[in-house]
């Protein structure tokens, strides 16, 4: 397995119908893998969307989002060896 095919450590599920397009998550995300979509959601906001890769599962976007169910964060449970590798990386 090469480094660029290594799966991301985390992922996010963005609830674009709850989103108010405030952009705080976009600003907060350390690897900058979120952006506001060009399209509008049902309430007329540009919802935040995930680029699809690069999430570390840090959870920051979850805390900065003012909407209770705007963002769900997932993390990959790592095998001990991989965890060590990630920690040393």
């Amino acid at each position, binding site marked *: 397995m090469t480094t660029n095919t290594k*799966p991301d450590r*985390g*992922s996010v599920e963005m*609830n674009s*119908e*709850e989103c*108010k*397009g*405030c*952009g*705080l998550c976009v*600003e*907060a995300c*350390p690897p900058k893998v979120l952006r506001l979509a060009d399209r509008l959601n049902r*309430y007329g*906001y540009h919802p935040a969307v995930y680029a699809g890769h690069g999430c570390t*599962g840090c*959870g*920051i976007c*979850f*805390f*900065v*989002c*003012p*909407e*209770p*169910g705007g*963002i*769900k*964060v*997932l*993390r*990959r*449970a*790592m*095998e001990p060896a*991989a965890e060590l590798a990630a920690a040393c990386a």
Partner: protein
Amino acid sequence: MGSLTVTHERADSFFDTFERKAELQHQTHYCPGCGHGIVHKLLAQAIDELGIQDRTILISPVGCSVFAYYYFDVGNVQSAHGRAPAVATAVKRSRPESIVVSYQGDGDLAAIGTAEIVHAANRGEPITVIFVNNGIYGMTGGQMAPTTPLGRKSTTSPFGRNQWTEGFPVHVCELLNSLEAPVFIERVGLGNNKQIMNAAKVIKRAMENQVKGLGFSFVEVLSPCPTIWKFNPVEAQRFVREEMAKVFAIGNLRDRTKEAVQRPAATPPPAVEDIPRILGLVNGEAEAPPTGRPDRALNLHIKVAGFGGQGVLLLGEVLAEAGLESGYEVSWLPSYGPEMRSGTSNCHVRLSSDPIDSPLVSRPNVLLALNEPSLRKFLPALEPGGIVLYNGEAFPEDCARRDVRAMALPFSHLADEMGESKAGNIIMLGALLEATGLLEEEQVIGALRRLVKSQRWFELDLKALECGREEVRKQPFPLAEDYLWGV
């Protein structure tokens, strides 16, 4: 390679749907980027993590967060503007096992509610206060708050806050830190990721302190209000970081959680059955309980009116007390001006076979008018078919009604003749009872015995009652046998 598992998601302490409106049942009502949304999330998260959802009671304020009860799936009491710490005190004291959170804005806590927060803190009430300081009144459209930074414009400081006219920004944490009792005081911010993650920790600490019974914990959160400050959400975050945090230094001001001594357990509240005894309402064993529902259905709306000193209130009280003794539901509501001994006074008395909806009497069916101004004022409101007793020789010509039963007698003169001019009220009572047979003599005398402390006056009143009855026997009152008293 492991699989993905959820680490952060909507807290259980939020309702699944927000039923405030038919629309938008998953969104809060807050503006995009509003700090209230973030503070809600951090608080809900803390409640989840501490496993206290079932015993948390949130006291929501007046301000943009007035609807917090639509979002948090915990116990809720919505309080009047600024009063949340007082309400929280009551809730915590009556349910010591609950976790009580007073959630307040800066207009709510630092302006109209200054007294409540200072004294709740000073008493060291073991509650948690979350103080959302956005430096402005959000809900009402941007008036200056006590926490608005100097120079900042608002609708009520259109040239910028000026220390000479509006005073300096109020530092609530520092103010409370001058008190002895609080155990935990910290100011946090929502100005960037680091501040927000720290705010999460501190809010959880403040909740945990309460779970451990440590004492008053206070967290001030410097919070963005993008809408009123006219910033986009990211700029508003910067404003918190660069301006608010300069005026209000972020950090812990007090952590006495280690030294905190457990408050002595509050004495448990008395049993409800015990309250009459504690209030001295039980005279002795002889007191018989009310005899259940009276035979006769009644729904009396009585207005007694006169000038101060005529015994208006006592007359009403005797009626209510005798009604109570006879098994009716009763209420007695005095209404008088600021004058102690002069001016007009009146009281509202209800006596009913059924529970009383309101103690106010606006459409009386019995009017006892002890002077002419009272007659003129209240006669028009008397129910058709109702009864009016007037303290005078005759009704004034321009003040009479044909559709009510009316009796005029010079009660005060009769009292003068008895040698005690103040007994006119009880003579009137005697006349009313004789004319209507509304209440039994025994209950009325029992009421007088309890209400009139002096033996001399008690005996005088017995004479006065009889005098009133006698007058009516002389000139019988036109009352139809089958008249139903308000029912």
